[in-house]
């Protein structure tokens, strides 16, 4: 039995790591060793909680109480446990990758990069462990602020303009919509604590519920539900490790995770199911899924295409959540994990291609499979997972989401998922085909080999995990089924 007083360690560990990194910034080897050690220790700490939470424990720790009834508190529940596990585990792999990428590309300001990365992970852990909306909001803002220097890393005019969009959209939505939503919740219910079954029921009814839901969904800009998605393509100016871990896993997942958590623990699944004014959300999610996939079809830049693919995949989670049936809720949770493995692999591959060959555009990729077979094999696995082809992780979550949709007889969801699968196939399969089978395009330099070893190691691990997850996912399913065990099937 772990003591609940070790919960804050999950936050302080990456913070201490950041300070240590700042102190030894002059010695790159030591700095990166500390980065890696922090990541490993954090993952061990987070995973050591897994069995207990899986057995039904809900540890809780109050940090401080700035206002009466408004606490800064941490707690672990299945959804947060999973998010913390994914983010902390992938941080290890991403650190290995970062070392290869940052050295391979001879990037500047590497110390700042590692410091901000550790801070961002601390913020992500805070979001995962938030016990109430107030704590969630605090770490949500911290995550935005700590990732800004990472997005603006390059420091030229174009990067700064993009970083401005990133910060502007995320801060504007969170201060303009999310904060009022939180205060409204607090004024209406007198609480902001996440409680299974929700706290809204009986306090608000009718259109107000739909409006509050809207404030939350669009206020959490990190979930990138259209039209507040513009920051995500803008964030692609960041170095690829940032795009990989933060803008495919930590930041965007923090967004959908928050929305899922709010729907399950603030609104309550049963309550929302019977509330007609909340039905608009599935249409918004369906619209985002389809539109993002169509826009992705027209992208010529690899990272931008992946960004739009992420936007679509994020709304899968939202749509699965608002199907409001037990199987779909499990599907939403599993999709957070499944998409994380697949998308980080794709970004790792994109970064590997950039490091080894300095290629960023899709047309340059023709024939690259012969030069970089390991990278492209990983890319292929990631892409298949996005489409949802077995045996990859993407299939597992799609299975549950579809099963939930059939359970609810929700045809909007069913058709959206089918349509989006077709679109996903349409933009991923040609790349795979051309990369492996087509001859190189004219004038494209093919005089390169595979990326540095650290990069290859990282993307091999995540690609393998994408497949392993298909066969070995029972612990996660057991954990997440606790979210819905009180609900009738």
């Amino acid at each position, binding site marked *: 039995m772990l003591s609940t007083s070790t919960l804050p360690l999950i936050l302080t560990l990456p913070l201490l790591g950041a300070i240590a990194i700042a102190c030894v910034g002059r010695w790159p080897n030591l700095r990166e060793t500390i980065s890696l050690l922090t990541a490993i220790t954090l993952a061990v700490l987070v995973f050591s909680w897994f069995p207990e939470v899986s057995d039904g424990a809900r540890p809780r720790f109050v940090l*401080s109480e700035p206002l009466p009834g408004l606490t800064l508190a941490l707690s672990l529940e299945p959804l947060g446990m999973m998010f913390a596990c994914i983010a902390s585990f992938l941080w290890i792999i991403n650190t290995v990758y970062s070392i290869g990428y940052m050295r391979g590309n001879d990037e500047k300001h590497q110390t700042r990069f590692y410091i901000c990365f550790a801070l961002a992970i601390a913020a992500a852990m805070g979001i995962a462990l938030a016990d109430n909306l107030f704590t969630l909001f605090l770490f949500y803002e911290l995550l935005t602020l700590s990732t800004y220097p990472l997005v*603006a890393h390059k420091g030229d005019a174009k990067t700064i303009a993009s970083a401005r969009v990133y910060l*502007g959209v995320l801060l504007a939505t969170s201060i303009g919509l999310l904060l*009022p939503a939180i205060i409204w919740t*607090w004024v209406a219910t007198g609480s902001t604590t996440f409680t299974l079954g929700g706290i809204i029921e009986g306090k608000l009814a009718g259109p107000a519920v739909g409006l509050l839901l809207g404030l939350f969904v669009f206020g959490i800009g990190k979930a990138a539900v259209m039209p507040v998605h513009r920051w995500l393509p803008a964030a692609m100016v960041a170095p690829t490790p940032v795009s990989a871990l933060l803008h495919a896993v930590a930041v965007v997942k923090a967004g959908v995770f928050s929305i899922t958590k709010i729907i399950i623990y603030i609104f309550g699944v049963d309550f929302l199911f019977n509330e007609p004014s909340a039905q608009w959300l599935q249409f918004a999610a369906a619209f985002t899924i389809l539109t993002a996939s169509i826009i992705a079809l027209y992208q010529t830049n690899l990272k931008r295409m992946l960004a739009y693919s992420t936007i679509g995949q994020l709304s899968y989670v939202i749509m699965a959540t608002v199907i409001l049936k037990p199987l779909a809720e499990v599907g939403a949770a599993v999709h957070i994990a499944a998409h994380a493995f697949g998308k980080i692999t794709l970004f790792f591959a994109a970064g590997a291609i950039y490091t080894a060959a300095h290629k960023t555009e899709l047309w340059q990729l023709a024939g690259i499979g012969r030069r970089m077979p390991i990278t492209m094999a990983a890319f292929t696995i990631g892409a298949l997972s996005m489409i949802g082809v077995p045996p990859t992780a993407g299939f597992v979550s799609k299975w549950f989401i579809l099963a939930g949709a059939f359970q609810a007889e929700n045809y909007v969801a069913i058709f959206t998922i089918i349509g989006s699968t077709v679109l996903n196939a349409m933009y991923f399969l040609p790349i795979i085909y051309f990369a492996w089978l087509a001859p190189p395009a004219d004038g494209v330099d093919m005089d390169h080999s595979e990326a540095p070893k650290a990069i290859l190691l990282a993307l091999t691990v995540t690609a393998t995990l994408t497949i392993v997850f298909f066969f070995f996912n029972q612990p996660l399913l057991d954990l997440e089924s606790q979210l819905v065990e009180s609900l009738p099937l």
Partner: protein
Amino acid sequence: MNLADHLPALQVALPLLTAPLVILLRNGFLAWLAALVASGISFGLAILLTQAVLGPGVPEYAVGGWQPPFGISLNVDGLSALMLLLVTGASTLGLAGGRLSLRRDIDNRRAPMFYGAWLIALAGLCGIAVAGDAFNVFVFMEISSLATYILIAAGRDRRALSAVFKYLIIGTIGATFYLIGVGFIYMMTGTLNFADMALRLGDVIETRPIIIAAGFITIGLALKAAVFPLHIWLPRAYTYAPNAVTVFIAACSTKVAIYVLLRFNYGVFHGNLLGHSDLFSVFIVPLALSGILLASAIAIYQGNIKKLLAFSSVAQIGYIALAAGLATQAGLMAAQLHMFNHALAKGTLFLCVVAFVLTTRSANIAKLAGIGRRMPWTMGAFVIAGLSLIGVPGTAGFISKWYLVVAVMGVPGWGIPLVMAIVISSLMAVVYLWKFVETAYYGTPPDGDVSAMEVPLPLRLLIWSAALANIYFGLSPGLPIALAESGTGTLLGGLL
């Protein structure tokens, strides 16, 4: 009577009596040291008074043993203690952080005079906070204003002279309006003591002189408090004053005027004049709202960091006035908390500006490009204080913004538009601060030199303690909340 009972009088007497002694010192450094020590002791006294207010309470102090309502009385409640903490704290911060900056700005020969004026301003501001009658408030207001004009004009920047002239004219009009109002009330009630006035006003309510008096007092104080659009003296005065002076006055001088406004409108008029609160709200809320929105918008287009922060102050005064104008308990809480938190944030920001100007000799944003890389410590503190100004959770600014939003949500029918105005203004705060932050971190310095050039360690430590105070009071705001609760209790006194 033991010494502790004399604290309210000491709070004023100490800086007032030290001032002439400081002028006698012939050396700039010694004068600075003496002023700093006096200001520091005043701060200590304010802390002692705060403890007393939160504990056993501070008994009314009758100056010279003459009992009120005939003698002069000094009163310290939660609101006064809050003001005393702000005033003495800001003065100490300005003096401690401003040594190098003031040594450059102020001629060594005139330095003793300057520090004497500083202490007189401090005494005046403390006096307003403890005075228990309307006329002494006026006297102290004049003392502090005249001394403040000297402080602002003391620098080498000649533009300060025209700025201070404007301030002098408008400040005098404000003070005169206030005095006219007090005169009318004295004519009708025969008393100047606040508590006595509140009792006797009941006999003459709804008489024309009293209504006119309420108008004169409110507008006069709104001028002093720089409530939009009566703020025109403020931006230039803040911008061209010596940097250390700006730290002092920006953190507390306008808030003292709001303090008197609260005392009069709630302590005296609220319980007596029928419908006064509605009239007060109708007058102050639209002005506050336009201030919140327009001043924030103007701040975005400023090219000078001091002017940018000055316009931000006008907007923040709008928040305080808005909260105060709601005439509810929640509103008063929010107003007092925001006075405290804004002083904390703005004091820190202007202290950072002191450091910037110390090394670059310019407050022009374009010339400060790249300063974030050259002075990482100072800029880090600037960002923290800036977040507090925006109202990001975990900082002091969030606490008062939370109270403010909860307070305006309680306004029937107007809740959502008011929340939207606050939100829009907060977003504009993000824009105008980020404009500077971005230039500071990613801009190229005008001469291309990116070598480190931090200010000396003591100043850095001071800046960081101020910045950390913004976080501390964001995570455990017990002290300001307790003071504001106590203050709200006295202001709404009999009405609760």
